[in-house]
């Protein structure tokens, strides 16, 4: 099982702040592809031209990062703090 969190504008567009998935896709990229198959609004949010950042276990992660059971994955737009 993996835990997936959505923040800020993503959370609002997807109307979802967190969910658990039974099976962990192999990588962050695979997870993005899986989420994009859900149809609107997921397809738009996870379309390849969208800038959606990912973190794995609370550290910024690239698309090729391997996922393992128990991971926490966060998706969010570019940050605007400070």
């Amino acid at each position, binding site marked *: 099982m993996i835990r997936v*969190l959505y*923040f*800020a*504008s993503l959370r609002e567009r997807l109307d979802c702040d967190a969910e658990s998935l039974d099976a962990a896709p192999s990588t962050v990229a695979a997870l993005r592809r899986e989420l994009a198959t859900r149809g609107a609004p997921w397809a738009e949010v996870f379309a390849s031209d969208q800038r959606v950042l990912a*973190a794995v276990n*609370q*550290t*910024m992660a690239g698309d090729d990062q391997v996922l393992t059971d128990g991971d926490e994955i*966060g998706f*969010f*737009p*570019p*940050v*605007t*703090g*400070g």
Partner: protein
Amino acid sequence: MKVEIRVQANAFDPLAELVPVHAAGPQVGGVVSFVGLMRDLNQGDRVHSMTLEHYPGMTEKALAAIVDEAGQRWALDMVRVVHRVGEVLPQDPIVLVAVASAHRGEAFRACEFIIDYLKTRAPFWKREQTRDGSSRWVEARDSDDAAAAGWSNGAEATPSGSAEPTASGEQT
């Protein structure tokens, strides 16, 4: 290097936060601080208030990593970072970065490095409420990416990409 990092929903007084940094010890020659304040104008609209969201846990971890990297690049005695979350009003302090060092050049470099990296790597997001009642997420700015990228080549000098005008009402 003494470090304190806090992310909090309560308002903070940047002057009170500076007290221990100014008293960091007799070896400290200079303290450089940056205080980011909420502006009341964005893209021509009056901003009534702003709500800051963050990623609890990751935010603190990201800030600690940024401060740690600054401590590896420069000789620092104390670093303090405080960041508001939740609702903030115009002129409220949003962020404080304070750095004490034996030497002023290192304090300046480290302070600007930390705020530049915070703005591009720490998971905070601003949503602003304009006075006409509408609400929108603040867009990330290319100038912030440019400012942060200026540090990544290991250069000791500051990036020069952060001086262009911005239409954003968020503090800069």
